[in-house]
């Protein structure tokens, strides 16, 4: 028992260190000369003038303008509080998909882990608070957002201990979380979005209405997009669906159109709500996804 625990611990530790290294490498590489923090100097930056009304702090009155115009104007500044980001990682069975065809392509969970670690590192480096929530049809583990650099370890530990199982119920989980998440915080949702009959749009709408910035990372393995299998195959579900026996060749085209439709639907509903949607193919490198995301952030800041 002791041995196994020990073994487990060392395994977890090595995984954590790997994860850490990957995350750091990713983020550092991207940040060099590129990154501009979202919050740097934001607390002293001028936003607009407003007519003085009783109750406004007198020290915010711009006396120079008062001297010129004989009217009291109050300077308003952008809020300078640090960001609280919650990363929501899907730990349902479907995330554990391992391709029997291409062993070099990383597993979805592997990819998601690296992404989460990298994002956490990035955010913590900016002194933003990062939390991690693992879920399937309910919340499995919740690590509350902290901005301390040492919090990265907690997140890494949480990531290393994931064993994907169970079915997915994002809508339910988001509904529960929307109450708990602080206003104006950020929510990063990493999942394969294999959800049936669930109103994800409604949940996203709810989050948006609470001023929560939502970013969706849609992680899919190439097998799940192209269905490259051949022969008579019985597909066993990683979640709770019934097994199905068929020749994939017969339905390949149909499946590809279905999955494309599924991705497009998600993308469109995200666009409609102003939610960021990032598609991640596990066969492609994470840099692209991250850089895309950061570029987008930058452009937002510019605006």
């Amino acid at each position, binding site marked *: 028992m002791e041995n196994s625990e020990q073994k487990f611990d060392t395994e977890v530790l090595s995984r954590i260190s790997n994860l850490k290294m990957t995350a750091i490498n990713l983020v550092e590489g991207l940040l060099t000369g590129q990154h501009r923090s979202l919050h740097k100097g934001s607390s002293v930056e001028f936003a607009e003038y407003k007519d003085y009304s009783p109750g406004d702090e007198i020290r915010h009155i711009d006396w120079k303008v008062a001297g010129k115009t004989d009217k009291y104007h109050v300077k308003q500044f952008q809020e300078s509080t640090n960001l609280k980001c919650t990363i929501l990682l899907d730990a349902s069975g479907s995330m554990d998909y391992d391709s029997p065809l291409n062993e070099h392509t990383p597993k979805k969970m592997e990819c998601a882990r690296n992404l989460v670690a990298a994002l956490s590192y990035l955010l913590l480096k900016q002194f933003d608070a990062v939390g991690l929530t693992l879920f399937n049809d309910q919340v499995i583990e919740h690590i509350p957002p902290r901005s301390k650099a040492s919090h990265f370890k907690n997140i890494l530990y949480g990531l290393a201990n994931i064993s994907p199982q169970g079915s997915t119920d994002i809508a339910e989980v988001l509904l529960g979380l929307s109450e708990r998440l602080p206003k104006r915080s950020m929510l990063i949702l990493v999942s394969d979005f294999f959800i049936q009959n669930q109103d994800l749009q409604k949940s996203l709408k709810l989050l948006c209405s609470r001023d929560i910035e939502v970013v969706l990372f849609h992680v899919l*393995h190439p097998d799940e997009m192209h269905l490259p299998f051949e022969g008579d195959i019985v597909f066993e579900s990683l979640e709770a669906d019934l097994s199905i026996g068929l020749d994939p060749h017969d339905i390949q085209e149909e499946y590809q159109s279905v999955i494309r439709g599924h991705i497009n639907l998600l993308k469109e509903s995200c666009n409609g709500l102003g939610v960021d949607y990032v598609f991640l193919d596990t066969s492609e490198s994470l840099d692209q996804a991250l850089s895309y995301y950061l570029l987008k952030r930058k452009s937002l800041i510019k605006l």
Partner: protein
Amino acid sequence: MSLNFSSPLFLLGLLGLTFPVLIHLLTRRQQKRIRFSAVYLLAQSQKRSIKKSRPNKLFLLLARCLIIALLSMALAKPLFSAKTSESLLPTSPASIVFILDDSYSMGTRSKEKTLFNYALEYLYKGLKQAPDNSEFSIVLASSPARIVQDWTSDKSNFINKLEAQAVSYRTTYIGDAIEKAVKLLESGKQKKKTILLLTDLDKNGWKEETFPKTTVPYPVQVLNFSELQSEKNKEMIENIEISQEFLTQSRLLRVKAKVKNFSKTVNRLPLSLFLEGKLVKEELLDIPPGQTLMQEFSYPLIKNQPLNGKLQISDDALPVDNSRYFPFHPSQNIQVLVVDGDPETISHQSESFYLERALNPFSVSLSHIDPTVSTLAELTLRNLSDFSVVILANVRELPPGYELKLEKFVLNGGALLLGMGDQVDPKYFNEHLANLLPVQLESQQEFKAGALNLMLTNNNHPVMRVFSPKTVEEMREINFYSMYTVQSREEKRFKVGAWFSNQHPAVIESEKGKGVVILFLSSLDRDWNDFPIQPTYLPWIQRWTQYATRGLENISRKDLLVGEPFRKNTTSTKWIVRGPSGTFYSFENDIFTKTFQPGIYSLFSVPPADTEEQKVLTKLPQGSKPVGTFTVNIDVRESEPEKITQKEIESLLQGFKLEFLEPQSQAIQHKESEAIPLATPLLLMVAAIFLIEGWVLRND
């Protein structure tokens, strides 16, 4: 409503269904199992593409199976009839006598089966539908009618009994069968009683005098199977006549056949002559419709042996009457040249007077011996090769050089009989006929009345076998007044056929080349004895003549009809019979009755000890010798295609409740005209499935 198949053998093709199934199973790839995330999306995709995916394979398998099934069904020529099959048999328990016509006309082929097969099929079907507690019995209606199964309620036993039945070669005898059926019905236990007559209504089987009169109006259902005949009996060999011409070195066999054409068109068919199983001659005959044609074959016979032959014409619906067997015994009409050495103007004083009458008392057709009397002067005009026996009766001297001719005649298989008399010159005989005679003639001895008789103690000689002990006794009393004494020659072998009471030989026989020389040491007329006026003289002379030509066991009647008994003409030896199928039978009280199969029957004489020990013979006992053959042929009256009409039956079967039925309405076998053939629609379906399959494959 029923479906029947004309060629049900093709239904075996349904076994071919296993091939597409096997191929499908073998080519099915090994199923792999993969744990997949988006299984519900796969299910959605499958639902959308349901027409194109997996079921296609099943559809193709189904289509291919259908093609094979429909094709084999189409080849089996299915006939569909919308008529419902109803049971003919009473629905309540009854006593039913089935009269099954097993005469050979029921062997008429219709497609691949015979009418008899159809009748049996009908019976099986009928029996299955018959209510329990019914009792059944079978009477076979061929001559003589016989009960093969008495009352029984055991259906399976009854069916077994039916299965053992086959078409016989006999003629129909409906009257006798109905009489037997009526007797059976009288002992039937059930209240309801009925007779079911399954026949082809061949007119031959219905004779007025044979029908019983009944007081109880039993119902008789007559099922006419002749309607099922797809083709008629076209021709038959009606009769064969055999004659022969005797020549010294060869004989000419003449076979005269009457062939009848039943059809309404001129029938051209080959008539083949088989001798001892070998085809020897063939002629093409053109027989006008409804006519009988006579055709004669001549065939030279070298060997002096009995032959069995067969005439055959091409097969038609009834093959039984297309061949006919005939026996040929060379002893028939033995041509005998009687050389009268002492002719007189008063005929009865001639040497040959008694001889000629003994050899041919009434006509040639009875004795089968045809004597020609010749004087010595006429002898040179005669051609010896026209005769098989030469009798020299009291001849003094032959024409110069004629002894050489005689010698050649005997060497080639002729028989020479010599009778003594006052004209005989022993010196001439001993000198000129030394090569032929095994003995030397010494001198004539005279005796008083009653002093010299025939001894006849040992009657084992083949010539003496026909004589009863009483007649032999009579023969012993015949007075001989004169005889020749003889002296044996050196290195000459001979047998003594009969002895005189004074221990001198009476008859000496010896073989010379292929022929025989027989010497009778007294006269053949009344000069030296009283023998010619005795009743035993006639058979004695005839048998010696036949014996000389090796036709002794000539059987009086050698061509029988099926069912006719064969009678043995001797009681002294045991005989057995080998039938055409190789089975051995023994005689019962010198009569052989099992002549139920047409063909050649061989007779064998058996040492007495053997036949008593073995009752069932499987092979010829040791020491048995062939003694002859006889042939059995069918009675051609049954072949006539004429059928009896309903009216005639009604007048014959007065007192019975008659019902006439056609078996095809009973859904046994439908005539093509009444049933709908399904072969073409099935083939069209096959073509359609091929098209669909091709289209599906192309789309795939």
